[in-house]
């Protein structure tokens, strides 16, 4: 019996995220912990299921072990389906040899067989390394209503930042007239979010052309989108106004974590209308000791806290001993902060230990962000 899906998602999760080092030393960027108990990829995956997209191919390449473990069968996102669901798509060997994914476009080109299994009318292409809550269904509907061949989600960014992004120029109906990847002199402030909807047949056509071009970097932003524009296809911009962060650098990663704090947080994680799902690790409840004080903090499970913590995001299974002070920091799971240690304006990666009396970081106004790598021990 023939079956099909209206729209499937292809989630690009193979990038190294080298600017996030050392957090990405042993783990792909989408699997980097975020907000106490999530991984970065949870946002894209949850957006998919919340937007009624139940078929997601996750393209992996760099350090996939932990990411694969984390994704598992896709059950935390209800993506463990018999037809559809979550599929990890690594590079593979075939009869005529095999290749690493040469670029974002090539990664999808190499997985045409997966796509054809679902015979989708539309393909949603996503990055696994952005923090945002977005209803792709609305974008898809606009794409259909416009009769577009491709739709690119865009954000209005400040002019001075525009040259960091792919910038669109559009007519009043949103039809894209020009696209420039990281232009020195941006003509508009509409920046691509790396979220695309394509008509399947058009995407396949241009992926094939891109593949035949030996000069191409096989990249969506650099090659495929300009080729489609040059080919006279109808490309529309979809203006998104909600929260979106590219957590590509340590400081943007830190500040996106901080966005989950406050009484009315910019990034509200406990939103019943838009749940962010994650894989659970079994932890006992968090215990706050006699000397504990927590102010403006997110705190996951399994922690034993007896120190002073403020304006920080805490993962799971963390010990913060009496007299320790943590401020303006992101503390990941299994970290131990011993007696009287001070951690300020820092990211402490998993399994690190800050020994008694040690001092990490400093005032966030006057010092640089400090990052302690996974498993490191700080004595002084």
């Amino acid at each position, binding site marked *: 019996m023939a079956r099909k899906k209206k729209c499937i998602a292809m989630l690009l999760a193979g990038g190294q995220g080298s600017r996030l080092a050392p957090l990405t030393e042993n783990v792909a960027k989408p699997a980097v912990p975020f907000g106490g108990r999530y991984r970065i990829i949870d946002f894209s995956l949850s957006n998919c299921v919340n937007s009624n997209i139940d078929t997601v191919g996750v393209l992996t390449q760099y350090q996939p072990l932990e990411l694969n473990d984390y994704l598992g069968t896709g059950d935390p996102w209800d993506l463990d389906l018999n037809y559809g669901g979550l599929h990890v798509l690594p590079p593979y060997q075939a009869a005529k040899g095999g290749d690493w994914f040469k670029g974002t476009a090539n990664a999808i080109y190499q997985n045409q067989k997966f796509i054809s299994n679902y015979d989708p009318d539309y393909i949603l292409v996503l990055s696994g390394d952005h923090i945002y809550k977005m209803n792709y269904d609305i974008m898809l509907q606009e794409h259909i209503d416009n009769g577009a061949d491709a739709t690119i989600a865009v954000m209005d960014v400040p002019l001075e930042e525009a040259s960091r992004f792919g910038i669109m120029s559009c007519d009043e109906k949103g039809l894209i007239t020009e696209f420039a990847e990281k232009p020195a002199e941006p003509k508009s402030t509409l920046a691509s979010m790396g979220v695309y909807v394509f008509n399947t047949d058009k995407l396949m056509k241009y992926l094939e052309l891109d593949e035949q071009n030996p000069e191409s970097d096989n990249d969506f932003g650099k090659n495929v989108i300009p080729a489609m524009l040059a080919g006279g296809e109808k490309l529309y911009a979809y203006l998104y106004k909600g929260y979106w962060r590219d957590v590509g650098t340590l400081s943007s990663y830190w500040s996106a974590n901080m966005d989950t704090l406050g009484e009315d947080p910019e990034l509200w*994680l*406990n939103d019943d209308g838009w*749940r962010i799902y994650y894989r659970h690790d*079994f932890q006992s*409840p*968090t215990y*706050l*000791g006699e000397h504990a004080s927590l102010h403006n903090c997110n705190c996951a*499970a399994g922690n034993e806290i007896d120190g002073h913590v403020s304006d920080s995001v805490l993962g799971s299974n963390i010990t913060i001993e009496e007299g320790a002070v943590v401020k303006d920091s992101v503390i990941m799971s299994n970290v131990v902060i011993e007696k009287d240690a001070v951690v300020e304006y820092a990211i402490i990666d998993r399994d690190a230990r800050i020994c008694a009396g040690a001092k990490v970081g400093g005032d966030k106004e006057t010092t640089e962000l400090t990052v302690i790598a996974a498993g490191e021990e700080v004595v002084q």
Partner: protein
Amino acid sequence: MNMLGLIFADEHDADVSELTTKRTFAAIPFGARYRLIDFFISNMTNSGIRNIGVVATTKYESLMGHVRYGGEWDLNRRKTGLTVLPPFSFFNGQVRYENVLEALQANISYITDYKEPYVLFTCCNAIGNIDYAAMLEKHIESGARFTCLCTRNPLNKEPGVATTEYKVDEDGRITDILIHDDVTEGAYVATHTYIMGRDDLLEILEESIDLNKKSLRMDVLKPALKDSKIMAYETDEKLLFIDSVSSYLQSNLDLLDKDLRCELFKKELRPIITRAGNSSPAFYGDCSNATNSLIAAGSVIEGTVKNSVIFRNVHVKKGAVIENCVINQDCTIGEGAMLNYAVLDKGVHINDKRLLSGYITHPFFVKSKSVI
């Protein structure tokens, strides 16, 4: 594993009727994020048991919703797994089993279906991290017909609630079984956890139906004491009893003790697992003041919390003061409200500036979904 596990979900419903109006005993929430049955399923799976029957007769909706197919414990396997056994019309047409013996009788077909040579069956009123594999080893080694779990250090046993005591000789053999209302200092208190041979159990059940026997303890165990080897297995693990609302409060608050908490939750290779929610991390506001408390994820703490156990998705608003309380899932505590020794069941809404105060022996209990 050569042992089948059976859990009696509602054997002690009447002891804490306040908490069991809409759920069975085994589904009572405990320790900020668990339900009582989690401890028993986890103990069983940690001991290598792969087939578990959960016998439930009434109000089992929340229990079934919680355990489902046992996926959290990796029990949702093709060949083995967890089965919830709701009542079905059995020999005397009753809806509800009066006691453990009847519950066993009604589930003969389940026991018959499995070939494990031993059966462990337990009620859910004593919470601990117990190694049933060690208990089975002792059972086999001693050549006992029955081995009965007991403790000489029952924590939070409520005076006035019927208690089963064993008289035990120096070899660990049970010589007498007494049921009375008070706990004698140093007595061997039963937890209603038994191991016995499957074939023997099936035989006993057939016979007990024929002879219309009613009580496992009085009609089966006690008459057999003389001729059969019925052994006590005394555990050194801490066992928290739940047989009244005040012992429920006390047993929850006992988890604030680090040693006890570690003994229960942080045992090497013996984790207590529960069904995962999907809550965000707990959020502590600028004015929060939380000390010596267990606080689950998804909660928003803006007020003061002391010596308390707070379940998932509880909102403690500014200026609220909570002391010595157990606050179940989805409760809201209004601004300036003050609660002392209160037990709030699920989904309670306390309006601003309300004052509730009980005492450890007489907690102020608020039933589920009340608005005060």
